[in-house]
């Protein structure tokens, strides 16, 4: 089939505003959305810019808005976007992640996203000295954080969240999922420190259970569920008196 691929282009050296460009791209139902972009870059317009590394849903580079929803371009198939027997001329649209500043074409400025990530102290915080051997964790203890550890930091969730759109300083699902992942890690002692950060007006309480993060997550993490658990923890902990 021949698809119409519409891409929101922006070149900071030439354009005042982003604009749409349209390309005809031959495609198979089992091609990835990323392969459409690669076709445009290799055969139509080499100046098209987007992030991509592994192309297998591990590195989290190519999160973007595809057909009006945040997705990982390498992890979504053409048939999932236009159907298996789509007619010629079916359209697939590509835009940068919503609400983030755009550097060029589909590349967003990630600095704000990673600032929020660092804000929640996404590392192991311990009280005592390091043990001789590794810090042990039972399978049951790990099961609690297993889902949250699958995060690849692609940013699809945070930029899908209406709370992020309305308040750029809102920590967002990705950062708070990390907070959950460490707070509920039985080897970690930094719960109070981290709850101080997330139990704030720009934190947990701007999560209105909209579920856009869950829908956007390419790893199918039940983000809202873990944020709810973190909300309960924050509400019952000493730290909640600080807010």
């Amino acid at each position, binding site marked *: 089939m021949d698809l119409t691929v519409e891409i929101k282009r*922006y070149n*900071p050296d030439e*354009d005042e*505003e*982003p604009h749409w460009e349209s390309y005809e791209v031959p495609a198979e139902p089992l091609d990835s959305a990323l392969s459409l972009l690669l076709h445009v870059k290799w055969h139509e317009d080499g100046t098209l810019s987007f992030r991509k590394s592994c192309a297998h849903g*591990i*590195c*989290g*580079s190519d999160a973007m*808005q595809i*057909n*009006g*929803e945040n997705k990982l371009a390498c992890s979504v198939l053409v048939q999932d976007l236009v159907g298996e027997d789509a007619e010629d001329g079916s359209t697939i649209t590509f835009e*940068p992640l*919503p*609400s*983030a*500043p*755009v*550097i060029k074409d589909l*590349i967003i*400025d*990630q*600095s704000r*996203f*990673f600032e929020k*990530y660092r804000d929640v102290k996404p590392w192991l915080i311990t009280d005592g000295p390091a043990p001789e051997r590794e810090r042990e964790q039972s399978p049951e203890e790990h099961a609690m954080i297993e889902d949250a550890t699958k995060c*690849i*930091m*692609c*940013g699809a969730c945070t930029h*899908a969240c*209406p709370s992020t*759109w*309305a308040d*750029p300083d809102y920590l967002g699902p990705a950062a708070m999922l990390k907070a959950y992942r460490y707070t509920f890690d039985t080897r970690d002692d930094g719960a109070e420190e981290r709850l101080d950060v997330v139990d704030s007006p720009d934190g947990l309480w701007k999560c*209105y*259970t*909209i*579920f*856009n993060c*869950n*829908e956007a997550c390419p790893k199918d993490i*039940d983000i*809202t*569920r873990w944020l*709810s*658990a973190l*909300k*309960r923890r924050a509400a019952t902990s000493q730290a909640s008196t600080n807010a």
Partner: protein
Amino acid sequence: MAVDTQERPAPTASKEGATAEQDSRFQRYRIRTGMFAWMMHRLTGVGLVVYLIIHIWGLTALTDPETFNALIAKYHSPIFKVGEFALLVAVAYHAMNGLRIVLIDFLGWSPNQKKLFWTLGAVTAVIILVGGWPSIYSLGEWILGPGSMPTLFL
């Protein structure tokens, strides 16, 4: 995993102000169950606040029996029957979706959020039909003429 380290920080624009800003609380985005539920929750919530202000203002007429009776008489006009019905719809939806959020946040029912939406949506529809029947009845009588509406549970 995307990386951001001291040696290799997350990329930023080379020049200040060389980015296209897309900051806006309104984005074009696909509306799925969760976002639809939230948007309706906001709309009905704001609607109820507006109603509450009008309601409290109406109560100020309580100081004088004459004005109060005149105000209540106005409430019998068809336009207020429509308003009455809209109020019930807003209250029923807001309450039931509020219950959904409570179940999600307090009991961790997040994996069932869509089923919850449709189940409680059905409950909301029943509440609206049963509770709103007097409004529907009197509106029907007004539009189709007296005696044209079936007298169910009235």
